[in-house]
């Protein structure tokens, strides 16, 4: 189950989206999220859907890869939908026992699910087309001004990229330890919540020990390769804007303007 999370998994392909500067993609993702939470009306939703699916097509990432990310938030979506469905105040359309469904509730539930699905799809385009290293490079460069006030931007970026690199490894390790403990009779399934948490101890302790050992090894390997912080480092893939990046900025800003215009002038039927 844990393997299904596609977040942070790069999908190598040769597309315009892959080549874009990570700063553009970060900025675009941010605007895209803003657009998701302030759109109104079917027209805007159409614009967003068109935009999203066009980008997915251009990115050349197979659609089923993106859908994998959705499975992980299935429960979250379900809960959100149910809460919205039953707990939104207003005129009840259907009511039985203590439950009542209002028109607003139904609308909100549908909207919320659409938002969450689009959110995951949109953000996974970014993580699937950008290597974590590029992503952190982008963050590092975008946040560089903060280092003047003493924020260790380089160190944070390095930590992030290492964390991303080790997520799949640690997941695999968790799986392995789990199986090893199950073979020794450990039980991760039954019991109430407290017991379940207690049962996790034989999983967590070896996992932590191994994570620390890995950290130690990795630090040594980095030192052996002359790593000594951000000073005097050059970049293999330095970031500089090209024409396509400028065009992408224009497109994404244009997109947000269109969504906002729809909100202003075509806010029906919602």
């Amino acid at each position: 189950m844990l393997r299904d999370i596609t977040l942070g998994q790069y999908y190598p392909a040769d597309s315009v989206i892959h080549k874009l500067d990570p700063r553009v993609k970060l900025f675009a993702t941010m605007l895209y999220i803003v657009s998701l939470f302030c759109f109104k009306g079917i027209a805007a939703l159409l614009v967003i859907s068109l935009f999203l699916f066009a980008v997915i097509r251009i990115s050349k990432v197979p659609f089923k890869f993106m859908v994998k990310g959705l499975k992980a938030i299935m429960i979250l979506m379900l809960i959100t939908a149910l809460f919205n469905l039953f707990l939104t105040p207003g005129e009840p359309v259907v009511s039985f026992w203590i439950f009542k469904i209002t028109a607003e509730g139904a609308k909100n539930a549908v909207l919320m699910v659409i938002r969450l699905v689009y959110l995951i799809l949109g953000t996974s385009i970014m993580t699937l087309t950008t290597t974590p290293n590029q992503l952190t490079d982008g963050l590092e460069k975008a946040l560089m001004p903060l280092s003047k006030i003493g924020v260790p931007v380089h160190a944070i970026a390095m930590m992030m990229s290492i964390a991303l690199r080790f997520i799949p490894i640690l997941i695999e390790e968790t799986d392995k330890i789990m199986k090893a403990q199950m073979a020794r009779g450990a039980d991760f399934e039954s019991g109430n919540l407290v017991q379940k948490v207690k049962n996790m101890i034989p999983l967590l302790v070896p996992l932590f020990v191994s994570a620390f050992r890995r950290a130690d090894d990795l630090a040594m390997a980095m030192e052996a390769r002359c790593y000594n912080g951000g000073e005097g480092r050059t970049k293999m893939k330095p970031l500089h804007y090209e024409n396509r990046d400028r065009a992408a900025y224009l497109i994404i800003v244009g997109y947000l303007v269109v969504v906002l215009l729809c909100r202003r002038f075509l806010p029906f039927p919602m």
Partner: protein
Amino acid sequence: MGIIKAKQLVHEYIRRDEEGNVESIQTALDHVDLDVEPGQFIAILGHNGSGKSTLAKHINALLTPTEGSLWVNGMDVSEEQNVLPVRQTAGMVFQNPDNQIIASVVEEDVGFGPENIGVPTEEIWQRVEESLKSVGMLEYRTHSPNKLSGGQKQRVAIAGVVAMQPKCIVFDEPTAMLDPNGRKEVIRTAHELNQKKGVTVILITHYMEEVVDADRVIVMDQGKVVMQGTPREIFSQVGKLKEYRLDVPQITILADLLRQSGLDIPVGVLTREELVGHILRLAQVEPPAK
């Protein structure tokens, strides 16, 4: 002067309790002398805890000597300002392939070392391509390391070191976590680097089969260098190796047994071809009696 020269090198792991009092001292290296000529292929053998990894970490300035001194390419490793140049001269490949790959894409990982030492961008690309080619991993340059086999990961790690253009590479048990195929890949790569690029190789291992092609074999036990010589010289002393809890290549044992049973086979046979040659020679002189 050799590229690596150790003189009376001592390293002690000191364990302290919470108040900082010395709890125990463990001598990992005990007055080690070593002299490695440039371009050599040296193998260091030793049982667990013999100090061979500790020695390797000194060559890369990851540990500093407690006593004695060590020079890498004429630079004293205990001097602070030499640390980075030493690490650039002597690269290191570690045991666990997963724990030494930093980036999530093969080529970015190979570029990590050159980035750290401030190589200009175009040259980094050139070096990455060259070093991936030299380990035969060029076609995997855009892959994620997680999807590679152990041997392939280890070759990527080697490429990462090669990209820093070191004069010497220390392999600290690079094959301990690999399957037989991966082991062959890695050892072949090490030999290729040694022969084609003239890189000095120091291979630390406990697999006897991997050292038969080395120029010189050094056997360590309890922090001391106890045997030194060509593989043939070392492996002809089967009894002594057993004392240091080391195995001898199976083919050498077989040759030794044959010799003891009266066949005219010299000591220190290392490869199967060699033994076959000897047996054929004997068969021609005195055909096996029915």
